């Protein structure tokens, strides 16, 4: 599964269950078929992303999709 970054943010103030992950990058990805998906960015394997960057699915962790820069 791959797509393009539609928008993104770097979250510093996290909800209770993700406090230990902060700061972490969250993005809305426009997939190749046009659907949009909110996903985390796998920063360790691909670095941070910007609008327009091409990304691919790296893995699912606890049901959450993580994308990384292509």
């Amino acid at each position, binding site marked *: 599964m791959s797509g393009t970054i*539609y928008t*993104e*943010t770097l*979250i*510093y103030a996290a909800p*209770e269950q*993700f406090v230990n992950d902060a700061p972490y990058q969250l993005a*809305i990805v426009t997939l190749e078929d046009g659907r949009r998906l909110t996903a*985390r960015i796998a920063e360790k394997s691909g670095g941070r992303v910007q609008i327009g960057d091409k990304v691919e699915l790296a893995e699912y962790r606890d049901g*959450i999709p993580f994308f990384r820069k292509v």
Partner: protein
Amino acid sequence: MRPVAVIGIGKTAFGAFPDRDLRSLAVEAGLKCLEDAHVKPSQVEAFYLGNFAGPSFVGQNHLAPYIAGAMDITGVPCTRFEAACASSGSAFFHAVSAVGAGLYDVVLVGGVEKMTSQPTPKVTEILAGAGDMCGEGRAGATFPALFAMIARRHMYQYGTTREMLAAVAVKNHANGAKNPQAHMRKVITMEQALGGKPIADPLTVYDCSLISDGAAAVLLVPLERATEFTDKPVRVLGIAQTSDQVALDQKEDITTFKAVKEAAQRAYKMAGVTANDIQFAEVHGCFTIAEIVASEDLGFVKKGEGGPYALQGCTALNGPRPINTSGGLKSKGHPVGATGVAQICDVVAQIRGEAGERQLQRHSIGLAQNLGGSGATAVVTILGAAA
């Protein structure tokens, strides 16, 4: 529909009040409102309450009769409305609809939230529940993050800058500093606003509304009966509530709130006015970017021009179209379930000429815009002097 008037307003101060419980705040606002309207509790025919998350924040359910009973209002329909941060805007919309339809003559509408008894990460988590918890919420989105993603896209498409966002915060703090009931009465500089602690990039702490306790209430009657109670009735000229997808990623264009645009067009049509006729507005600036987007969606400026409009001072107290003379959600505070009705109180106070240091010269027609979540509920109300 018969015309409806607001004949009373009442608000608590907004702030962090560790020694106050939810009910005492709501009762204070309600009783102030009844006194302002010259109405006895026994005359109230229905009670509409906006509250987002009392059960999560303080563990109390069945809130509407709980609060009404404490004001000696019993025996009549008492109902809670939940629509995220538009909870009391929605309660107000439905109360206006009921009075307009002739179901009741004397209706009290309240809004309340008690947020500061929980630590910030818990508050963030409860608020995130106004989004899609199977999608964006599960992935770790917070409300600041959703609006940060809106800001990023707005910057990308329209060249909106950090300075434009900061200008909204500086202006709202300047207004709130003059509001005795505001949560944070503190003037801030552009340098401070630009250098705030990051919350969700590009938004800093100065781009985000406050976590507040507070309550507000208004009293509605049919316009034809308004002068029985008051010599300064304010008429509901137009009102609409609309909806959209809850999840931000299901919206085609996140730089605009479709629900707000639709609600505004319907409210303008009902009132027989255009955006140009609106002299001032209280808009839902839960984040600085939200105020910029609101000024575009309400038709005050063209799409993409909301940032420069704010930076040039057009929305300041002395500008051509003042926005959030109360200080807005940023400085006045944002007890989420109280916000919609508090906005109505603030617009009514301006129309009556009771806004003190913040009183505008042109104040005969104003607008209130209340937003739920990242735009899944919108309520737009246009109010005007009844005489």
